[in-house]
């Protein structure tokens, strides 16, 4: 039986993309394989670890189990879209300055989850950061430097 494709129009990192996907395809695979946006990573594949986090209409989702067809007409932000040209986003700067990463595999998802947090709550407490980011797993840092990075970025971002 021949493959059936559905036409989608999505906005990815500010660019309109017209793509064709099969109904079973997940957003993570479409971003990585079709659009070469490999910043979002596949790890647990069951929406637990957060390595695949992207923002869909500003909300953090686990792209590994998010049907691509559900992204039709929506606005997607991946890690590649966070910086403005050469200028890093304060979250990216803060993670570098405060040791918020080691191997880097959780980092794309972690930073985007943090962005979703700070967009909602520009002045979170340490516990609020920990609670909000608890859907993102890091195996390397022990999490403290991640919390420090997010709080430092929050300070930068507040007027």
């Amino acid at each position, binding site marked *: 039986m021949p493959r059936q494709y559905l036409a989608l129009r999505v906005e990815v990192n500010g660019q309109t993309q017209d793509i064709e996907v099969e109904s079973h395809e997940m957003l993570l695979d479409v971003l990585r394989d079709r659009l070469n946006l*490999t*910043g979002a990573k*596949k790890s647990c594949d*069951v929406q637990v670890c957060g390595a695949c986090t992207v923002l869909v209409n500003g909300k953090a989702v686990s792209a590994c189990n998010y049907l691509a067809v559900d992204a039709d007409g929506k606005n997607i932000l991946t890690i590649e879209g966070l910086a403005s040209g050469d200028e890093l986003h304060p979250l990216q700067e803060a993670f570098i300055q405060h040791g918020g990463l080691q*191997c880097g595999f959780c980092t794309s998802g972690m930073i985007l989850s943090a962005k979703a947090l700070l967009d909602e709550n520009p002045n979170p407490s340490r516990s609020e950061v920990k609670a909000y980011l*608890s859907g993102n797993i*890091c195996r390397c840092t022990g999490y*403290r430097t991640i919390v420090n990075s997010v709080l430092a970025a929050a300070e930068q971002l507040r007027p």
Partner: protein
Amino acid sequence: MERDTASKVTGQAQYTADLAIPGMLRASVLRSPYPHARILSIETTKAEAVPGVYAVLTRDDLQGISPFYGLAYKDQPILAMDKARYVGEPVAAVAAIDEATALEALDHLEVHYEPLPAVVNLEEALSPGAPLVHEEELHKAGFYYDLKDLQPVPNTNICHHSMFEKGDVTRGMAEADRVIENTFTLPSVNHYPLEPLVTTADFQGDYLKIWSATQAPFHVRQELAAIFGLPMSRVRVMVPFLGGGFGGKTYTHIEPLTAALARKAQRPVQLAFNAEETFRTICRCAFRCHARTGVKADGTLVAWDIEFFLDCGAYAAHAPRLANPGPLWLTPYRFPHMRVRANAVYTNTVPNAVLRGAPAPFMGWPRESQMDIIARELGTDPVELRLKNALGPEEVFAPGWEPLHFDLPAGLREITQALEKPAPDEAAGPAPGKKRGKGVACGVETTPAASVSSVVLSLAADGSLRINASVVEMGQGARDVLPRIAAEELGIPLERITVTHPDTEVTPYEQITSASRTTTRVGRAIEHAAQRIRAEVTTSFCELYEVDPAQSEVSLSDGYVHGGGQTVPLGEIVTARYQGMPGGEIVAYAPDPGSESGSATHVAVAGVEVEIDQETGEVQVLKFASSLSVGKAINESAAHGQNEGGVAYALGHALTEEMVYNDDGQLINGNLMEYRVPSFANMPEEFVSILVEDRGGPGPGGSRGIGEAGALIVMPAIANAVHDAVGLRFMETPLTPQRILERLADRTEG
């Protein structure tokens, strides 16, 4: 280095699964549903007929090659041959146009199995007359000097055993006033690096290209060459950034399978696991240890006698190395009499891979737990008991072994002090229903003495430097530390130094990136190579600028050469050799061939304060203090990161992690929904990182390694603190809320 972190925070950094090779196919694996079964037949026709399938691989495709691998024994086949030995063992594989097609093809494979009786844990595997996981003769891999003499016990599942003795334990125990005897166990746990196992292979004629998430590109190269009958020089293994390793990516895993698929498909093939498939491929051994400690009434340790069993899983892999005498000698305490009997045992479960810390966490679990048990028995303080018996820095404790070269008593005192200091916002005492306790533990580990590293340094005509090395970057920060060592020797600014990623076709031999050996071994190789370049540069400079080296000191700093009143950019020394034109390089190669003098002993002292909620059984870590014998922290913030990261990693082993098998050998929690790794919620409230920079290590600046040290001794520190809090002694991990509640309930009822 900031260059790397910048590429990681922008999503630019490439990991193996991010590399798209033109024409690349995707693969999937059919796995045995039985823990032990003869494979009667595999029917592939329907699978091959699925549109978009390029290759279906079975054992029939492995004729004419040597399809076995392993670092101690070559006992692990690319695909199960006559029988499958664990649930999840690869039985067939498919390469197809995309993953969905490959998965669909798996559904069309028909495999007929004849289930066999299985041994799914140590007890079953060791019982007399137990079914044998391996009936065939075991072939030694013959690749590592410390795995030359392997001693299986015939007609059993014990694939290697050893014993060593110092003094006479029988006499020692007789001399002791008390002999404390206990059995300690550990379950299997999973390394769960966030990046799963992934390999891409491209096999054309006699040339095999591999991109793999491996910590051991040169080991993988030699195994692939042996399997496929290729010259090693025609096997190319490349490793980009690794998304964590923790030992789980050491040695050979899915490279041979991917290569075999690529060979059949005659197209590049990527085999990318998710976490669940990684759970079916590697794990840390389960462990059982019967320990006896003999001690005098005054607390002087007299004898240490242990017999332990490591559960290899279905293939020997790394476990025989953990059952070898060498590193087992190592303890932080003075034992006049010691006996260690070690066994590596096959079971029909997931095969093992070494986990961060290697033998130290295994040996530390019974030893440090016993120390606290003894302290309670004798009515003495656990820290005092350790101080009394701690080895001195220059104390020779075993023939042929270097002393610790580390002030362990000072480390213990510092940790105790750190635990005494209350946290800034710490409540006066625990809330009602909660109990607090403190525990300490000491861990020791050593880098293997004879292991080989080499580097090539290339100084370009503009004075910039390339470090050619096969060190795998998995977040430990080697790509930051190594340039600092070169910069120190050659006076070149850090931003003008670059480090290669491993590529066995281009970068020189590196035994492996593991065992905390990189800073010392590769660091020393860089120092040697840099000294050669320095010598050449100095000689050329003196000739060119008519400086008499006997009269004037020649120095290198900031990218310049200074001497005899002259200052010249480093690059000009290179261009002078290239007819004054901006070309050419000055190159130096240096191996660090591995010697006793290059071996480092790592000491970790851990102190922890916990608070236990007696209603829920939850253990909250209030404070964790970890002191590591780093020698010199070449990158201080990264070193603290390794300390805290190592502790956080092992906290999971202490509190939440356990691979659970049912009686049928099925792994029932092999996924992230059911297997709990530490999250933000499990963070210690306060972490105290102490880096002891005593300059006593063999590496540059007196450094030692640090990658594993934080993870060495967390489990017993936690168990000791829990005992201090609620009087419950756990001989097994993890110390889950459920187990704590059950024990608390038993105690109330009993």
